[in-house]
Every structure is written in C-alpha cells, then in structure tokens.
C-alpha cells in the first residue's frame, strides 16, 4: 500500500497505458471467430475449478460471522438479527470480496504465468505471425470467462456461507431455524444479491485483465514471468479494494 502511494505519479502513465491496451482489447472482442472456441474451456478452468477454494472460504466465513454477531448482539439486540447480519454481509461484502481475493491469487496468477511464459518463449509472437491477434486469442476468452464465472462462483459461496452460518447458529448458539430465517428474510432486499454479483463480475474482469496485461507484457525469462505473476496478483487485489469502494459509493 505504501509503495502505491510513493508511485503515485507513475499511476497516470499506467492508467493511460491500460486504457490504450483496453481499447485494443475492445477491438479484439469483435473478432468472435477467434475466441469463441476458447471461452467454455476457460470458464471451466478459471471458474468451475475455483469453486472448491471459494466454498472452503465461505464455510469458515459463515461460521465466524454467526459466532461474531451473536457475541456482539447478546444482551443488546434480539438474537434473530444474527440471520440478518450473516446474510447481508455475506451477500453484499464478504462473499464477493473474499472470493475475489482468493481468485485473484488463483486466477490472476494462473493467467499471468501462462501468458507470461508464452510471451518470453515467443509463442505470443508466433501467434502474431500466424495472423492472430494475441488479445483476441488469449486475453478476450479469459477476461470474458472470469467476468461470467466470478458471479457464479460467488453465488455458490454466498449460499454455502449462509448455510454454514445457519448451521452454526442452530447448533452452537441459542437460536432456532425459524429465528435465523426470520432475521435473514426481514432485512433481505433483492438488491443485496445483485449488488454482490455485479461487484464480483467487475472483480473477475479486473483480475483477468491484470493477469493478461502483466502476462502479455512480461519481459526476460523465468524471473520476468515471476515478477509479472506477482504484480498481477497484487494489482488484482488492489483493484478489488478500489472497485469495492467504488460500487459502495455509487450504488448504496
């Protein structure tokens, strides 16, 4: 974080660079024939394969939230509010953000390392000589797949997190299933759901973009790929936090 502050003047150039790059990616988006066949495999690799780690995180988040809220509420607020707190925070904040952070490591690093290796071994150049645009062949299917699949993975994580919170509440707290669902339903709004899913789609896009950008601009050899991968994960996490604040400011 401190490094980001020091590097502030570089951010302008960086943003301009990313902007130009994104414009090129837009053009790449139009070349449907090139990326179409790669979309589903990428959705499986970046999305479906990420579900276990997302669910693992969700289970523990649900348990901790239930215990934490009962600890905070006891004696002050009716305990059925545990359901409301668990539901709302998981749907709107912890589900998308924690899943995003976990997948920034998994998906961002995966993309940056793969594309970075292709870059430094001239495979990206080889694609170009075969008249492919590496952005439409490599970047577009990954960014689209992450944008589509992050909300799906997050939805699973939210569901599992709430269930974990409910099981915890029923078994470890002095709370019945009826009370838990009462709290959950009383404050539920449809916006809670779409707000969380929209956020996670934007996280997916940002993480995959950072991974592609860092991978396709990797220089040197193994060390360059390593550096690109690290930067991709750090930038991915940073963009999650920035986007999280952005959506909260704009939509809440």
């Amino acid at each position, binding site marked *: 974080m401190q490094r980001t502050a020091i590097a502030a003047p570089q951010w302008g150039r960086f943003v301009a660079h990313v902007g130009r790059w994104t414009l090129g990616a837009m053009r790449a988006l139009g070349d449907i024939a090139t990326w179409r066949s790669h979309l589903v495999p990428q959705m499986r690799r970046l999305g479906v394969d990420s579900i276990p780690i997302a669910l693992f995180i969700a289970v523990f988040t649900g348990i901790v939230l239930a215990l934490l809220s009962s600890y905070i509420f006891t004696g002050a607020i009716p305990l059925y509010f545990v359901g409301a707190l668990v539901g709302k925070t998981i749907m709107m904040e912890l589900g998308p953000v924690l899943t995003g952070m976990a997948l920034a490591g998994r998906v961002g690093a995966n993309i940056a390392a793969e594309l970075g290796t292709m870059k430094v071994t001239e495979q990206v150049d080889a694609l170009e000589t*075969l*008249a*492919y645009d590496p952005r439409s062949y490599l970047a577009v299917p990954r960014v689209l797949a992450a944008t589509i699949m992050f909300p799906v993975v997050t939805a699973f994580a939210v569901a599992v997190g709430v269930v974990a919170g409910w099981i915890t509440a029923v078994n470890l707290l002095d709370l019945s299933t009826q009370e838990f669902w009462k709290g959950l339903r009383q404050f539920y709004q449809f916006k809670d759901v779409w707000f969380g899913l929209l956020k996670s789609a934007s996280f997916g896009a940002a993480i995959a973009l950072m991974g592609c950008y860092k991978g396709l601009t990797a220089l040197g050899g193994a060390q360059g790929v390593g550096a690109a991968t690290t930067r991709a994960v750090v930038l991915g996490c940073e963009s999650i936090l920035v986007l999280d604040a952005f959506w909260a400011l704009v939509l809440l």
Partner: protein
Amino acid sequence: MIELRSVHKAFGAREILRGLSLEVPEGQNTVIIGYSGTGKSVTLKCIIGLLQPDAGEVEVDGDIVGAMEPDELVALRGKIGYVFQSAALFDSMTVNENIALGLRRRAIAESDLRDRIEESLAVVALGDAGEKYPSELSGGMRKRVGVARAIALKPKYILYDEPTTGLDPVTSAVMDELMVRTRDLGVTGVIVTHDMRSAFTAGDRVAMLYEGQIRQVGPAAELRETDDPVVRQFIEGRPDAPLSLRRAER
C-alpha cells in the same frame, strides 16, 4: 518484393540496425549471414512487423509495414511464413494442432486440413510425430515442426531464422534441399544462417550483416569469391582476424 530502406533499430541505448538496406527479389532465396547478436533476427522481425523500426521503412509488395492498419497487418501475415529461431511451438498443443492453427486462420476447409498437415510433416520427415506435444520432441525435431508450420501455409514468402541450427549434418542437408524445393515452387525465402554450407547450397543471393548495415550483398557465387576481408573471414571462419580487424576499423 520485400525491401528494407535504411532501417534503424535500437533497444535502449544499444543501436542494433544502423541504416540497413536490402532488397529481396522474388522467387529467390536470400541468405543473411553475420555475427551472433548483430541483429539478423531483429531484421526478420521488422519484416513481419513484430518489431517496428525506429527509422527507415520496410516495404512488402508495395505496402509500408510500419503504417499498417490491423487488418492490413493480418493480410501481410497471411502471405509470410515465419520460422522462429527458437521454434516457438505452442506447448499446450500437439504438433498437429500447432500446424492446424495457422491453417484455420486462413479458412482452409477442415477436410483439407488433415492432408495439408500430413503433407508438411512428411516434408520434414516427421510423419509420425503429429500426436506428440512439443515437450516430447528433441530440439531439432521442434525446429522441423516450426518449418512444417510455416510451409503448411503455402505462403508467398518464408522467413527462416536459422533453420539448420541444431540439426545433424544429414538432416540439415535435407533442410537445405527443402528450402531449394520450396523456392522452386515459387516461394521467396529469406534465410538467416550461420551454416556456410547451407548458405551456399540453399541461397541464391547472400548478404552479410555487419555492424548494423549490409556489408556486402550479391549472388552466392560472387560472395564466395569476395575480396572484402570482413566477409572473407566470416565465410572462411578464421578466428584470428575479426578482433584485430574490428579494432583496426575503429
């Protein structure tokens, strides 16, 4: 025709090409020789637009490579095959898929695809390697797959970056023969090589790149008899002269 006009290219403060001019006539194999690190690969990359010259122009069939729109660049690459020095095979794909990728982009019918792949693999004597992955091949085999990937496209031009490096003497003779046969089919070749036998077997014209410029260019027979001490010495591979010569020139 491919024409380079006083091309300059630097990486940071290091000037690699310093006003390189070269014409590549159609229907012939033009060989580029030169010391390691003088910018032969860089020259080929400028021709196909992977690198942009800092100054000067690269012209292919009357179009300036540097000034191309994305779809013009696609058209340019449609007529040039490129054999990478490092082979640069896609390591997540089998040999067959490597070759098919370029063909698909050219909208070759799926029914012809198999024939084209088999044909080009047979030419480089790798008929049975189609289902293998690049990591399962030797360096020389990968090199030949790289060649097969380029010739399968039946392009107008092929740029070969050290096609015989890492091949045994017999296989490199086969490669020379292949480049001659490909030329006889009307393909214009630009061959970068360190292998003098290959240069004079496969090349119709030979150009020597030295200190960022073309030191001498001409018909192969003419270069073989050249009086230029730098070129002579490179062709004959004498170890003593280059250092003393370079020192004398500065």
